[in-house]
């Protein structure tokens, strides 16, 4: 760095969001891309550490000090090359990643960490603006064919890597457009879908074939799949939602978060939704159960749909706002996350257990809840105890269950006959190879529900193994 002491002079500054009053009225991205010079200034805070913990904390191992420096020096093109070397989808992680790196930033020990995620976004968006992100088809084709099933982040990363290695890659997607959970699981106000389209367009020009609306196993026979391709990589995610099996669950007005979000996203994309199946929060009292990212996406969506009020409840107690002793730096801490959606309104309650949905005429009207105390038993296992005398009700005419996903959907998996692990995910060895010959698995499908950045990492690692499997050796990075 030109001046290694800049971190003392420049303070952390994150990019602003559009005003709440404005943004709740539309589905456009809430975050504002900050000007390049601001990003360069923030990048200059990077200390170029001898042991870059950010690089360690990042699941794809982004070369964070390198591109911070390159960006700071105005070498944007080199910065994006460096960024792309480890990350196939920086425009996605740059928007959506919880930024594990920032929690392990050395500056975070006694100061505010670098705005790493936003710097990443600045670099990739700069590159797109400059037209540097161009199709770059491989120089040579190997003649090998690989099917990637599922076009979420793991599938896309895997396909991109394999294509670069010269294999003919076909990506199968059950939905009408590629992107998987990125496309329909994440609201547009957090990820504008043009961002996905932009990337897919390049992939297509580089020679990746996308077969959408194709449910492998149903629309496309497994036997054919095995015949047509030298290798298959399963990257269909972990979509089976966790349910809340309590009295009244059958009432109308209780939805799974993913059903809600997918439909909303389709609407935003201009698709027609049959009125019968319409889930609309407009004018309704909405309760979101589950305090995670999906829950907060539901909160934001409900507000945009014009909900009368939105309450979000979570079983676990409110996480601390800053690190505690048992989760010291540089580990990724469980902290209270207040997303842009939370700033848009609604209430949050913690340590609340829902005992029953109560309805009228088959339609949900309220939730019976109780406050709980979370402790540990003598073996260190979590123990949840209702606190006597704290029972209360919450009025609701729409409930969204955002309780996470437990394992992949069964269809194709059972047809292929791949072994599962005890949690119900596809079992794969350290080379991402499943119990079935030529079949690999990566992403949530293998590791269970996780972060986008982990999915990208999985996709890349799987591609490395697949290439090696097909060719005997590989020049793709192992990380």
């Amino acid at each position, binding site marked *: 760095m030109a001046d*290694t*002491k800049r*971190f*003392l002079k420049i303070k952390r500054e994150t990019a602003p969001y559009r005003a709440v009053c404005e943004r709740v009225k539309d589905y456009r991205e809430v975050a504002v891309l900050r000007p390049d010079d601001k990003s360069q200034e923030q990048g200059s805070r990077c*200390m*170029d*550490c*001898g*042991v*870059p*913990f950010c*690089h*360690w*904390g990042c699941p794809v*191992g982004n*070369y964070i*000090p*390198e591109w911070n420096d390159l960006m700071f*020096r*105005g*070498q944007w093109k*080199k910065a994006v*090359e*460096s960024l*792309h*070397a480890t990350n196939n989808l920086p425009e996605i992680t740059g928007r959506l990643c919880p930024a594990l790196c920032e929690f*392990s930033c*050395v*500056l975070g*020990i*006694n*100061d505010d960490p670098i705005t790493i995620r936003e710097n990443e976004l600045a670099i990739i968006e700069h590159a797109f603006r400059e037209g540097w992100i161009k199709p*770059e*088809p*491989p*120089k*040579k084709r190997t003649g090998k064919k690989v099917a990637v099933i599922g076009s979420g982040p793991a599938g896309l990363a895997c396909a991109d890597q394999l294509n*670069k*290695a*010269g294999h003919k890659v076909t990506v199968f997607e059950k939905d009408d457009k590629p992107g998987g959970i990125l496309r329909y699981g994440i609201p547009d106000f957090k990820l504008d879908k043009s961002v996905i389209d932009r990337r897919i367009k390049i992939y297509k020009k580089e020679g990746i074939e996308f077969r959408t609306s194709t449910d492998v196993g149903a629309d496309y026979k497994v036997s054919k799949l095995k015949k047509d391709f030298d290798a298959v990589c399963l990257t269909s995610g972990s979509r089976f939602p966790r349910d809340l099996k309590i009295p009244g669950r059958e009432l109308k007005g209780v939805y799974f978060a993913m059903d809600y979000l997918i439909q909303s996203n389709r609407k935003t994309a201009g698709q027609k939704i049959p009125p019968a199946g319409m889930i609309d929060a407009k004018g309704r009292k909405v309760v979101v159960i589950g305090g995670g990212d999906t829950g907060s996406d539901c909160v934001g969506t409900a507000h945009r749909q014009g909900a009368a009020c939105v309450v979000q409840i979570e079983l676990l107690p409110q996480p601390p706002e800053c690190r505690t*002793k048992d989760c*010291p*730096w*540089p*580990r990724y801490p469980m902290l209270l996350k207040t997303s842009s959606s939370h700033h848009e309104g609604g209430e949050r309650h913690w340590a609340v257990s829902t005992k029953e949905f109560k309805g009228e005429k088959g339609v949900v009207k309220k939730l019976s809840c109780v406050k709980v105390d979370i402790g540990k038993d003598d073996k260190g296992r979590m123990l949840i105890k209702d606190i006597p005398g704290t029972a209360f009700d919450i009025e609701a005419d729409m409930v969204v269950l955002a309780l996470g996903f437990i394992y992949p959907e069964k269809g194709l998996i059972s047809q292929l006959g791949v072994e599962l692990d005890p949690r119900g995910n596809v079992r794969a060895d350290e080379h991402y190879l499943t119990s079935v010959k030529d079949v690999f698995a990566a992403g949530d499908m293998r590791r269970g529900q996780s972060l986008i950045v982990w999915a990208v990492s999985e996709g890349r690692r799987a591609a490395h193994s697949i290439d090696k499997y097909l060719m005997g*050796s590989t*020049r*793709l*990075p*192992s*990380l």
Partner: protein
Amino acid sequence: MAKKSTGRAYNGHLPAKQGLYDPQFEHDSCGVGFVCDIKGRKSHDTVLKGILALEHLMHRGATGSDPDTGDGAGVLIQIPHGFFAKECRKEGIGLPPEGDYGAGIVFLPVDGKKRKACEDAVKRITEEEGLALLGWRDVPVDDSMIGKTARDTEPFIRQVFIGRPGSVPAGLAFERKLYVVRRRAEKDCYITGLSSRTICYKGLLKSTQLKGYFPDLNDENVTSAFALIHARYSTNTFPTWDLSQPFRFMAHNGEINTLRGNINWMAARQGLFKSGAFGSDMRKILPVIVPGGSDSAMIDNTLEMLVLSGRPLPHVMMMLIPEAWQGNNQIDEDRKHFYEYHACLMEPWDGPAAIAFTDGNLVGAILDRNGLRPARYVITKGGLVVMASEAGVLDIPAEEIAVNGRLQPGKMFLIDTVAGRIIEDSEIKAGMASSQPYGRWLEENMEKLSDLPFPHTYKVWHEKDLAAAQKAFGYSKEDLRRVIKPMAGDGNEPTGSMGDDTPLAVLSTRPRMLYDYFKQLFAQVTNPPIDPIREELVMTLNTYLGREKNLLEETPDHCHRLKVNNPILTNIDLEKIRGIRNRTFKTKTITTLFDASKGKAALKKALDRICKEASAAIKAGYTFIILSDRGVDEKHAALPALLACGAVHHHLIRTQARTRASIIIESGEPREVAHFALLFGYGADCINPYLAYETIEQMIRDKDLIIAFPDPELASSTARKNYIDAVNHGLLKILSKMGISTLQSYRGAQIFEAVGLDRHLIDKCFSGTVSRIEGIGLDEIAQEVIKRHAAAFTGLAASQAALPNGGLYQWRRDGESHLWNPESIAALQDAARNNDAAAYKRFSELINNQAGYLTTLRGMMKFTPSSAARPVPLDEVEPVSEILKRFVTGAMSFGSISRGAHETMALTMNRIGGRSNSGEGGEDPARYKPLPGGGSIRSATKQVASGRFGVTINYLANADELQIKIAQGAKPGEGGQLPGHKVSETIAKVRHSTPGVTLISPPPHHDIYSIEDLAQLIFDLKNANPRARISVKLVSEIGVGTIAAGVAKGHADMILISGGDGGTGASPLSSIKHAGVPWELGLSETHQTLVLNDLRSRVRLQTDGQLRTGRDVVIAAMLGAEEFGFATAALIVMGCVMLRHCHLNNCSVGVATQDEELGKRFAGKTEHLEAYFRFVAEEVRTIMSGLGVRKLDELVGRTELLDINTDILNWKSRKVDLSRILYKPEVPAHVKTRCSIKQDHGIDAILDLKLIEAAKPALEGKERVKASFDISNTDRTVGAMLSGEVARRYGDEGLPDGTVHYKFTGTAGQSFGAFLAKGVTLEVEGQANDYVGKGMSGGRVIVYPPGHAGFEPSENIIIGNTTFYGATSGEAYIRGVAGERFCIRNSGAYAVVEGVGDHGCEYMTGGRVFILGKTGRNFAAGMSGGIAYVYDEDRNFRSRCNMGMVAFEPLTGEDKAVIERLLSDHYKYTRSAKAKEVLDDIGNILKHIVKVMPVEYKRALEGRTMRKDVLFEEVSDG
């Protein structure tokens, strides 16, 4: 002198090579001198005087564990004909007249039969050579007083007499014949000399034993005009009879650093030898250099051969040890021509040397170009010359002294006893220089590269795929960013901090550059490194290319060579050479590429092919061979350039063709300084790093490198020049680390140790290089090349084809592994902060179990409990508290780390019973007092380093241990620099300097140029604080064991062996990575050597360098350590997260910074440190319990409990052999293998005890005391113990001025007035030796000659070299001339002197110096503070002043007042006539007084803030 390789047939007294002990690395150093009658009058008195002088040099020799066995002493005299005639008559030997017979002393086997065989052989050879053996005489000896070791190895000593036949003329021809006989006979016995002119009596004796042992020497018929003497100090305790000196022509005090190269070059040259004088006898005397000799013996071999082949003795001396002539404005052209001509014939034998030499008629002495050995002489009015390492070895009345002088750097002193006169240096050299028209010869024959025509066939090369080429040659982005960028950008050396925690190349699973398997060697103790910046006038990179001729002749053709000033060739330079057609010059390019697809075999074949092609090219008359790897592509891979270079170089040496052509490397591989150094070290003459150049151009294009020239051509040529400058600068630094001054001598000198290469490979390509753990061979090297090559040509799209990131310097998860990584750092911090045993376990597991990322040699080991021992219950193992006492924290100066960090360590270590170390840089005296709430932040160990910052008597008195830092693991052999902007108010205070003024630590301790000097400093420190133990810090390298043996003999109480991977606040990256070896090697070698020498019992061993866990401690103990040092780990506990920013003053966690804001961020706590050390100790206990060992002492040296853990080896490490590290020497039971005896420091009967006794009233009641004493050169360090007593009572304040005033008469020994405390005045009427007033702390030293002296005081030497070194305050008045380095690193003393030698006021940072006369060269080099006034009588001072950091200023009123005050005091104290003269005419003289003012100092005094980029912003200290 040093380096002996194998035992000789007749003795075998050195233990055989075993374990890590290798007798090859014995060093010695000595006292040397002669007494000579100028007129050549022979007398017995002269012989006796010589022996007496020898006895007075006794303290420069040494003894081992057996106090009565000396290391060797001897005397070389003229043939005492009268005596021999008388003795031979008794024996019935008919002796012809003087000159018609040769005599020699022969060391024969004691066994009668064997002896007979030897004698028969001598007789047979004598007769075969046409001479007659006249007879044998038993030399009477009295061995009653010599030690057991000496007696056990004593030979049977006889004299042989050989007659001259009529066919051989007397004189040189007869000498040659005797030489042939001796050389042939030497195979059977050792002959001290065989000559018709001289004879040598020597043996494994102390100097005081010589006369008693050889009764011959007492016979008054033994007469000679001179006696050349030598007393030896050997590092080992098995010095042998035959290695005692003098040799045949000379005695040597010093060390030849370039020996390996000199041997090889000599061997290579022999192929061209032809001599009319020797004729057909030539083949009988080859090889010229007798294998197995010491370096001194070998230079004697060469000298002898060259003299006997017809060159005059002084001529040969000028060839072997030329003065620094390049760029020397003090010597004339003719002489330069002489040197340049001879540079075409042979390389200098480089290293510190004081050599006394004689051929029987001429007697002389010469000093090396650096003047790194002392040599003082006296010429009496009666015509006697006494020359010796010290003044005062003979008691010569002052009125008889005509001249009191010293030999100056590069100068020769010669007496022609036949002509009966002294020949001045300038006269001898002028004579030699005009003996041939060297200037004309050079003009007519020598070509210069710069004059060659621009190549018309110049081919512009560009790599088709630059990234692929870079990858094929192993480039990473880190190489660009961290190495090439600073070099090409600013001409700077890449700098880093902290230590090396990556795997040794041979343990790494990754392909590594072949360069990484070598570690640079460096000077420690037995020879000093030099300062390549401040003393660059002695250094040169000049290179002469082309064919050498017969060394034994002189013709104009001999200098038909191509002169290259800069051995790093640009592409145009290279093409000029490639296209050359000029008389004999012809260039052959040999490709070093091979077909990568054909695998390993192709590499091996290519290696043989290039050797063959090189031989063929030489046969065909080519004079330049370019080994080129241009053209790497998908199919063609390159041989590692170093492999190719070494293979061809050694192949040509073996075939004696090496000197017929030059080897030029055209390679894409070299980019770091270390790469270039290795290539030169293994024989490259010039190097063209084309890919580095092309990379620089790419970096400019890509804006990775900003050069402030808009024109791209100009930008790239500027960047290229910067890069070459940086390489050159770095090379000089690497040369200087070993004390080598010229690239010509460094070339082929192989100053490296291989770590991880197998012996076949070494024998083939790097013959003679030490490689102690075996390792990879050609197969694995080929694999590495092929892997790199495959990764380069991947066919991937460009975006994925970028260079790898690297990870060698910084941690990267896809790079080389580091033991300090996010996981281990986090675990350690968790453990220490939360006192969390589970986290510690996690941490230690990450470090201890290196499966998958094998990093350290200890990582390869496992414990193998002896079957006899059963585990003991944990509670029977000694408690944690006992183990903690053995823990110390590493030396880190307050300056390199923050106050918080420094004090936290001190407080913790004092609390747990360990020791913290002040580091170099002084300590705030406020810390000496215990804290109000209990506890103490005083560093128990105080370091004494080369800069001597803050080393006052009070500092020394407040220590439990005084540690002499010889070297530091991260940058052994280098100095340091704390840039002015880092010298804050606080730092300046503890370092006794000025805020804002740069502080330079010189590379060597200027009072330690040799092992006996170190013994002297140990003695000094012990005097200053008899309660403190004295330790010496060395860095692990081959031979450190023998150095440690020498240090133990020098009476150190503890020796610290530091690993080469240890940390630093700032150091060149090349030193962090490429210098020094792991402590496992150095510690084990040291332990083994000390045990074999029976010295282990006298000294404790400590080790440090990346120690982290209890397992590390246990292994260190098993390899020989009793104490253990931690530095990086301690810093990490205190918050360090390895930013590696220490050199940037930018530590974001407040550990390694002086920035106040950042310092506030420091969050380290003593509880954390304590918790960590307790965990380590607990882990030690757990392991001990498992091994069935109750006390840590019982682990020391127990290598049988260790073995190699074959489970975790990888494709390279499985070739490693640890058996030599794990070797346990077998010794008799009485030999103790851990410290059990206290050293005898010899301070029980010294003069200071009397001084202290006499000073009682002053010490107890501040009463004034005055007294007088006699003094002699054996009274050393006078005043230091007394000063310690003052400091202990009165601290820095001392006593009121003039409280104690002692007067001495005679010659003061070394270190007179060392650390002299305030209130003490010492006055000498007479003279003094080296190191007067070192570390003076407020006292006053006065030296003047006796009133009746026969010489003019202001023109004669009166005090020795390196005086007032590191003085912090006080005054000195010296009536007479001082030697080299007067007031070096003075930071506060006021001194007056009447003339000084070279390098006056070097590195000075404060105080005032007034020089009333001439100065030597290089005055004020590195002087950043203080003021010097020089009376410039001959108006020529400027040419002798180094203007690098100073300017001349007009005198101010204040200056004038100071000058007048100093002058009148000088007159008052010394009655100096010169002072009087000047005072009387002060009005006129003031205008000739030059004020030498450091630029930075002036600015600081004026309160202006410093610009950050002033001067060299290279390296801060650590």
